[in-house]
Structure formats: structure tokens, C-alpha cells
């Protein structure tokens, strides 16, 4: 019989899960859990294959599970799911350490990366090619943005919390509603990113973004906070809406671009797979996920409502259907 906890899913959650798993293995008699990476979606898919030893116990996700997925899970017999929010992932904008510094607003990013913007009341293909055209306060550095590819959940956050917000703030959104004839259409118009090569989708990981900035010093990249904090020797971070991204700022909610991270447990496996409950408890314990714990130290933005989560995990509260 399988005696280790089997975890799969998000590569964003992986570092945190691996820190927990390692400490769990060191401090408990249970074997070190296996934490696979492969993406939130792939993890949830395997999570929802069914119950049993040949399926995983825990799925990590950098987004909330979707209703359709819950339904698919239920269809395969995975009816009782415990949802655990472990904290937040800050998303930051950084450039080469030796380059110019930036203080962005969402509007700047929208103006720089949208496929179309409103100029003189008409939607035109984005004419901006240097940052000073976007915002005169910026240097005349060519626009070159490395943003997460469409496979990454981060992209969704970026689209909605940066580009769409920027679109709304600039007032272009209202104009688009007028022009395109509907809010949905306007949203689509706002969030479509230019494809002329000034914005580059990164399908790989943050290391790839970093490498691209390394080989193109004009580049600006989108990173996770934890990643940035480990690479402060190469990157300088930009402020967003006047706030410097730090764990504190994100926890307080003043820094606007972040997303919650989760993991999901099969309730049916609790008490069956040895160590599963203990692993979940340990993960959300103050020792690990608390504001001074190793996860926060590594870059996780601790959840202010951690105590509630701890209680829910201990009680094995399952999601409402």
C-alpha cells in the first residue's frame, strides 16, 4: 500500500509545498510526501480522476478550483474536497538591475501592451514603442515586456488586475464599450495584448524571463515576488500604483497585483493515506505558513486569515457543492 502522501499541481505552489514536505519529512515519522509539479490544471485533472491509491491525495493550485472541475471531480467519485488557501503570491514587475527604474501604474502597462488603445476617440493599433510615449515621465527606453504565456495562471491575473484595470483607469474602457458595443467586448478589447513582438509571452518559468532580461537589457519582466527576492542582485523591482511590492504590502492589500494560492485535499483519503491529515495541518501551521515561518521567509505572503484556515483543515471542512 502506498504510504507517502502524493501531491501534484501548480508549479507556483511547488516551492512552498516542497519546503513543507521537506520539513514534514524531517520532523514526522511519515515518509516525505511526493510533490509533483506539472501545472494547476494537470494537477487538478489527476486529482479528479477518482479515489484510490493510484490517484493523488492533494492538488496544489495557483487558482481556485473551477465549478466545472468540481463537477468533473464529483462525477469520478471525488465528492468531498477540502479547500485550503495557504496565502498569496505577489506578482511584481522588474527590470535589469543596471537599467532605468520605473514607477508604474496599471495604466502604463495597459498603454504599453494593449493591442489597441484609444487615440483621439478612435481605437487604433498601439502606436507606442518606447516607454516615454506611454508616460512622459519615463525614459525613452524601448518597450520590451516579458509577460507570462497563456498557459500560466499568472497571465490571467496580469490581464485582469493590470491591463484591464489600466484600461478602466485610463477611461479607454468606457470608450471601448461605446465602440465595440458591450462590456464583454470591451473587456476583450482591453485585454488583448499586442502581437508585434514588443510583448513576449514566456511559456517557461521565471528563470526564463530572467534569462531573457539578461540577454535583452531593455526588457521588463513579470515575476513572482519570491523569485524576485531571490534575485535582487540581477533585478530591480518597479512600484505599482506607488506601492513597493513586499509581503507586508500585499498582506495589507495595498499592493494591487497578487493572487491566492490553494491546495485541495481529498477528504476520502484523510485518515486513510497515512500522514495526509498531519501534512495538511503542518502546512498551515504557524510554524510553516505563519508570517515568520519559512514560507513567508521564502516569499509567500502569509494569509491574514490563517487561523480560520487552520481550524477548517483540522475539522476537515469540505467545500460546498
Amino acid at each position, binding site marked *: 500500500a502506498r504510504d507517502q502522501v502524493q501531491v501534484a499541481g501548480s508549479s507556483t505552489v511547488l*516551492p512552498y509545498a516542497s519546503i513543507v514536505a521537506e520539513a514534514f519529512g*524531517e520532523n514526522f515519522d511519515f515518509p516525505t510526501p*511526493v510533490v509533483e509539479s*506539472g501545472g494547476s490544471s494537470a494537477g487538478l485533472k489527476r486529482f479528479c480522476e477518482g479515489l484510490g491509491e*493510484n490517484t493523488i491525495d492533494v492538488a496544489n493550485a495557483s487558482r481556485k478550483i473551477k465549478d466545472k472541475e468540481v463537477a468533473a471531480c464529483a462525477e469520478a467519485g471525488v465528492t468531498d474536497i477540502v479547500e485550503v488557501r495557504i496565502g498569496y503570491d505577489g506578482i511584481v514587475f522588474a527590470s535589469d538591475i543596471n537599467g532605468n527604474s520605473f514607477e508604474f501604474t496599471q495604466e502604463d502597462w495597459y498603454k504599453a501592451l494593449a493591442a489597441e488603445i484609444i487615440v483621439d476617440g478612435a481605437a487604433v493599433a498601439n502606436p507606442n514603442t518606447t516607454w516615454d510615449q506611454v508616460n512622459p515621465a519615463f525614459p525613452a527606453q524601448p518597450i520590451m515586456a516579458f509577460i507570462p504565456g497563456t498557459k500560466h495562471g499568472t497571465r490571467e491575473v496580469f490581464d485582469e488586475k493590470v491591463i484591464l484595470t489600466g484600461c478602466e483607469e485610463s477611461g479607454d474602457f468606457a470608450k471601448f464599450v461605446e465602440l465595440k458595443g458591450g462590456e464583454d467586448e470591451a473587456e476583450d478589447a482591453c485585454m488583448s495584448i499586442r502581437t508585434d513582438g514588443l510583448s513576449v509571452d514566456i511559456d517557461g518559468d521565471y528563470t526564463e524571463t530572467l534569462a531573457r532580461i539578461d540577454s535583452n537589457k531593455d526588457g521588463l519582466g513579470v515575476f*513572482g515576488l519570491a523569485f524576485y527576492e531571490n534575485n535582487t542582485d540581477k533585478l530591480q523591482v518597479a512600484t505599482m500604483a506607488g506601492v513597493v511590492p513586499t509581503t507586508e504590502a500585499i498582506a495589507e492589500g495595498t499592493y494591487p497585483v497578487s493572487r491566492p494560492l490553494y491546495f485541495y485535499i481529498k477528504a476520502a483519503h484523510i485518515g486513510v493515506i497515512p500522514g495526509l491529515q498531519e501534512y495538511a495541518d503542518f502546512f498551515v501551521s504557524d*510554524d510553516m505558513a505563519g508570517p515568520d515561518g*519559512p514560507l513567508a521567509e*521564502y516569499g509567500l505572503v502569509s494569509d491574514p486569515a490563517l487561523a480560520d484556515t487552520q481550524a477548517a483543515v483540522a475539522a476537515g471542512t469540505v467545500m460546498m457543492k
Partner: protein
Amino acid sequence: MSDHPTSPSSFPSNPSGAAKNSLLKLDARTKKRNASEARFKAYGVGAIALGLFFLVALLTSIIGNGTPAFKQTFITIPIELTESKLDKSGVRDIDVMKKVTTFGYKPLVQSALVASLQEHGIENPFKKAADLGKLLSSSAPAQVRDVVLANPELIGQTIEFRLLAGSRVDGYFKGRVDRDALARDKNLDAEHLDIADAMVTAGLIDTKFNADFIFGADASESRPEQAGIGVSMVGSLFMMIVVLCLALPIGVAASIYLEEFAPQNKWTDLIEVNISNLAAVPSIVFGILGLAVFIQFAHLPQSAPLVGGLVLTLMTLPTIIISTRASLKAVPPSIRDAALGIGASKMQSVFHHVLPLAMPGILTGTIIGLAQALGETAPLLLIGMVGFIASNMPDGIASGFLDPNSAMPAQIYEWAKRADPAYYERAWGGIIILLGFLMTMNIIAVILRRRFERRW
């Protein structure tokens, strides 16, 4: 001819100028052909030189980036194992002592470091022991705890421990980290480096060859200094055993059937096309197949090298089959005739004569197929072999095949993604080991291949 006036058949050269075409002088056409010959040969040399040049370029960058991974910085300090902290009950009951987690050991280790600095008269600007403790790897408490739990009698004594230094400190001694870079790094300050320098002078810090990198297990994101590739190397080894034991015989058997026995008809054409087509199937699709067939249908364990090996076998088969068939085809029919004419059965003619002659090609296919299998990550993603799988070394054959493990390329791929730059050098170091592994694997095949090579 005029070059050889002493030649016995020498004649006065023809006055009309119709020069005889001397062998020693190339005629125009031969010159042209020779030039094209020389060009052709030069292309060959050029091709090989180019190939080798790329190899050297790649190897240089691999080795240049990867060698630091083989060295590691250690901090040696005495730690007092206070009973009041580690075993309040005082009865040395392991189960009770286990209640003290690494979080309990951490302050102990950190204060020991402070004490050690004081003892050596090294100035310590940090008020909190925890701040100074950033010099140490976060693995230190676990390291101490393991020793204590294994030898409870040590409690109460002061023991000298050789602990891993944190990755930034290690990076400092390898030239990766400097004081400027630390200005905005919350993990370490420039003062730490001053202390580290002083500690080197005091003999508390040294940088040594790090065998744990070659033999150890993976570590979490927060402790690159502890990570090793050994366990995943064993994972790869077991997978390669599966691949070799299955793909080679099955591939050769399938090729023999298709090339030597199968009737030539639409069906075999279909199979032939199918096999070449399998080679073009993206490897991740084999992962989908493996997950469905081996884990969900056959209920084999997840993350197991056995399953990984099976998936890679399916992936390697086409390579071996294609190369085997090509070399079987290249054996001249007269050899088959000779054997059949003596009364050998078709089977005997194939196994006794054709197969040995096709062996070089088969081995080449094996070399290439195994190289591919050894370096493949994508299909492993779907069967649970990529991620953080820090198991211990398998403790037997069965456990080697069935217990969760990763593989070298998956490990390298994971490392390459990790945020701490210290993992960067480890990824390259891992590649060095992977290549070493590959070449060791190849050597046997290459030697065998040379023995089988002959012309006829």
C-alpha cells in the same frame, strides 16, 4: 613523361605539341574532379569539425557553469546539546525526544554560532541570533536533530558539527555573490560576509569537495546547498535498466519480424509507417498513454521508476526499430542465401548471420535511443516523476523500481526553474553528471559496436 628522362620508354617529346597525358601531371578534367573531391572531403572534415566544435562549445559552457556545484562551503562550530531544550523529561525516550522539532533545534544552533564567534573574538553586529543564523543553511537544525536522535547519549555534551553554510555564503566564496548584490537582499547582509571572512581566518569556514551533491537527495527551494542528484541518478539508472531490458529485445524482435519474416503487403506497410510515425509522437503524449495504461488501468504505483521506464521504453522503441530495420536491410542478400543454401532455417540465418552483421546499427540505435530516454522529462511529468521527490536512496531492487523517485533530467529541469541562483550552478553540475552517466552507458555499446564492425 618529360619528368622522367631516364625512363626506359622515354621518347623525344612530340614536336607537334600533342603532349602525352602523363600520370604525374593531372589533366584538366582530373584536376577539376580532384578539386571537387577535395571539396567533398573538406565538407566532411568541416562537418565533423563543426559538430565537434558545437560539442566543445556546449561542453565548455556546461563544465564552466557546473563545476562550482561540486564544491560546498561548510561551517564548523561546537554546539552544546542542552538537555533542558532537547529532552526535558531526561529519560532519553526517542518518542518523546522526537516531539522537539527542528524549530526547537534552530535557536540552539543559532546561539551556538553566536557563542563560537565570541570565542574566536569575531565581531558580531547582530543583536538577534536568528539574524546571524542566516549564515547557516536551514538544514542545520535537521542535521543536528538527526544526530541527536540517533545518539541520545550525546545530550548534555558539546559536540563539534560541520554544518552547511547558507547558499548566499557559499555563493560568496564561489564568487557568485558580492557585497553590492546583497544591498537589497533580505536574506543576507554585507555584514554577514565580513563575519564569514573572519570565520575563514579563524578556520571555522572551509570550502571542500561536496560528495553529497553526487550522492545526495533533492532539497527544497530554500536550501540549494543541500541538494544532490544521487537519488535521482539511481532513479534514472533503474529506468534505464527497464528501457534496456525491454526496448532493445522488443525493438530488435519487432524489426526482425518486419524486415525478415513479414510478408510484403499492405498490412506490413501500415505497421512500418506506423512505427516511423511513433517516432514523431511528442514524448509527452507517451506520458498521457503511460498514465492511462500503467497507472490508471494497470494500477502500477505513481512516481515509480518502473512506470517511467515503461513509458520511456515505448518512446525508445521506434528509434531502435527504425535503426535496426535500416541495418538489417543493409545486409547483402547473398549472406542470407549462403546460410539458407546450407539448410539453415530462416530463423537461423537471421540470428546467426544477419543479426551480427546488423549489430553496429542496432547498437547505434540503442545509443541514440537511450540517450534520448535518459534526457527526457516531458513524459515523466504526467506519471509523477517531476517535482520535489526527495526520497532516500532505494533500499533494494524492488524499492528501486517501485518507490517514488525522480530522474536526472527531471531533477535538472526542476533545479533550472528554481528561484535561488544557487540552483543554477547545481542544474549545470547535474548536467555534467548526466553526461558522465550517459558516456559510461555508451562506452559499452561503443566498444561492442567496434567489435561487430566489418566490411564484406
